[in-house]
C-alpha cells in the first residue's frame, strides 16, 4: 500500500522532468554546440576567439549595469526602510504604487522615458519654452543607465522592503538599548539582517540590465552596443548564430557564476536565520 503510494506520487513529476530536459537542458546544450561550431557544423574555437572583438561591449555592459544597480540600491534602500516603518495602511498603499510600474510592460516604461528625453520630447520642449538650450539626452550613456535604473527600480525595492519589514522591531530596540546610535543600529543590525534582500535586489536589477537590448536601442539611440544588442544582432542572420551563441554562453556563465557566489555569501553569513 505504502509502496504503491510513493510510486504513484513520483510519477506525477515525470512530465515536468521530461519537459525540463527537452526545453531547458537541451536548448542550453544547443547554445554550447553552436558556440563551438561553424555554420557548417565543424568544431571550432573561432567564435570564442572572436569574442575578443566584443571586449569593449562586455566592459560597457558590465559597467553601465553595475552603475544602474548601485544607483537603484542607493536610492532604493532608504525608500524600502521608510516604507517598512510606515503604518500598515500606508505600507499597503505604497506597495501598490510600487507594483503598478512593475506590472506595466517594460517596453511601455522605456518608451515613456523616451517621450520625456527625446530631442523633441517634453523636457526639451520645456527648456526651449524657457529659452534655454535644449539637451541631447537620447543616445547618451547616462540616458541608458537612467533607463535601466528606472525600469528595474521596483525590483530592487521590493525584496529590500520585504526583508527589512520582517526584522523584529525588538531586535532594533535591543541594539539601541545596548548603546548603538541610530547609525550604529543601521550598520550593525539592519544592513546585515537585510543582506538576503540586498542580494536578490541586486540580482533582479543587474541581470536584466546586463542583458537588455531594448533600453539601449531606444534610449541609446543605437549609438553604442551592449551585450544584449550584440546577441540580438547576431541572431538576425543565420550565419552569425554561432558568434551570438558564444556571446550568450559567456554572459550566462558570468551571470550564473555571480549568482552562485552571492548565494554562497549569504548562506555562510546567516545560514541559521531560517530556523
Amino acid at each position, binding site marked *: *500500500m505504502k509502496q*504503491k503510494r510513493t510510486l*504513484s*506520487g*513520483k*510519477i*506525477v*513529476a*515525470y*512530465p*515536468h*522532468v521530461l*519537459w*525540463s530536459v527537452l*526545453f*531547458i*537542458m*537541451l*536548448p542550453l546544450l*544547443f*547554445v554550447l554546440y553552436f558556440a563551438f561550431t561553424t555554420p557548417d557544423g565543424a568544431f571550432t574555437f573561432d567564435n570564442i576567439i572572436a569574442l575578443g572583438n566584443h571586449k569593449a561591449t562586455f566592459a560597457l555592459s558590465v559597467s553601465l549595469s553595475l552603475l544602474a544597480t548601485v544607483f537603484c540600491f542607493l*536610492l532604493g534602500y*532608504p525608500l524600502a526602510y*521608510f516604507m517598512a*516603518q510606515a503604518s500598515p495602511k500606508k505600507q499597503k498603499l*505604497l506597495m*501598490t*504604487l*510600487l*507594483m*503598478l*510600474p512593475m*506590472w*506595466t*510592460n517594460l*517596453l*511601455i*516604461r522605456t*518608451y*515613456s522615458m*523616451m*517621450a520625456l528625453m*527625446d530631442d*523633441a520630447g*517634453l523636457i526639451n*520642449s520645456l527648456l526651449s519654452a524657457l529659452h534655454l538650450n535644449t539637451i541631447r539626452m537620447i543616445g547618451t550613456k547616462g540616458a541608458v543607465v537612467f533607463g535601466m535604473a528606472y525600469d528595474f527600480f521596483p525590483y530592487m525595492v521590493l525584496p529590500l522592503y520585504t526583508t527589512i519589514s520582517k526584522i523584529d522591531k525588538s531586535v532594533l530596540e535591543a541594539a539601541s538599548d545596548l548603546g548603538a546610535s541610530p547609525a550604529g543600529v543601521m550598520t550593525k543590525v539592519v544592513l546585515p539582517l537585510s543582506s538576503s534582500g540586498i542580494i536578490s535586489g541586486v540580482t533582479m536589477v543587474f*541581470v536584466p540590465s*546586463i*542583458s537588455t*537590448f*531594448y533600453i539601449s536601442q*531606444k534610449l541609446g539611440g543605437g549609438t553604442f552596443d551592449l551585450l544584449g544588442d550584440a*546577441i*540580438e544582432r547576431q*541572431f538576425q542572420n543565420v550565419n552569425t*548564430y554561432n558568434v*551570438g551563441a558564444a556571446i550568450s554562453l559567456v*554572459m*550566462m556563465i558570468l*551571470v550564473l557564476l555571480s549568482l552562485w557566489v552571492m548565494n554562497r555569501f549569504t548562506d555562510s553569513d546567516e545560514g541559521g536565520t531560517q530556523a
Partner: protein
Amino acid sequence: MKTLQKIYTFLIFFILYIPIVVLVLFSFNSSGNTGSMTGLSLYWYRELFATPSTFTALKNTLILALSASVISTLLGTAAAVGIGKFKNKAVRGAVLSVTNVPMMNPDIVTGISMMLLFVLVGSLIGLKEKLGFWTILIAHITFCLPYVILSVRPRVLGLNRSLSEAAMDLGCTPVSAFFRVELPAIMPGIVSGFIMAFTLSLDDFVISYFTTGNDFQTLPLLIYSMTKKEVTPDIYALSTLMIAAVLILLILSNVAESKGKNKENETSAKAAERIG
C-alpha cells in the same frame, strides 16, 4: 514617518510616475506632437482601434497567456507534489536546479537557446515556418514553470502528513485523499502560481521576440514593432489602455485580498470564541 522621510518617499514616487503620467496625458493629445500638448482629443484611440492588428495582437496575447498559464500550472503543480517524493536527495536537487534555470538566466539567453532548438528541429523535420504559436507557447510554459513550482511547493512542504493519513484512516484511497484533502490545502499556492504565470506570459517581450514567427504577434511584440518606426501617440494610447488594465487588475486583487483577510479574521475570531 518623519517629514524628511515623507519628502524623500514622495520625490521617488513622483519621479517614478512622471513618465507614465506624461505618456497617459499625451495619448489624449490632438496633434502628433510628442513635445507639447496642443489640445485634448481621442484621435489616437480611434486611430488605434481602426488598425485590425491591435485586436489580433490582443487576442493572441490572451490566448497565449491563458494556455501557457493553464498548462504550466498543471505541469508545475504535479511537479511540486511529485518532486518531494523523490527519495534521492541528489536527484531532487538536480531537478529543482534545472527547473530554476529559466528564472536565473537572462531572458535573452533563454530566448535564443529555445530558438536554436526550434530552428534546428524544425529544419530537421523539414518545416517551412519553424517558429509560430506552438514554439512561443512552449517557451512561455517553460519560463512560467519555475514560478508555479515556487509558489506551490512551500504549500506542499507545509502539508501536515497526518492530514492525508487521517483521510485514509477514514476510508479514502490515496488518490481520493489527495483530491479531497491535500489539493484543497495547496489550492492558494496553485491559484497564485496561476496568476503569476498568466501575468508573466502577458508581459513577456524578450523570450517571445526570439521564439515567435511572423504570423503570431502579441501586444508587447506589436509595441516593439510600432516603436521601431517614428514616435507616434497611438502607442501612447495603447500603453494607456494597458496601464489602465493593470491598474484595474491590481485594485481588484487588492479588494479580493482584503475581503479574503476579513473572512480569515472572522473565522479565526469564531474559532477563538468557540475555544473561549
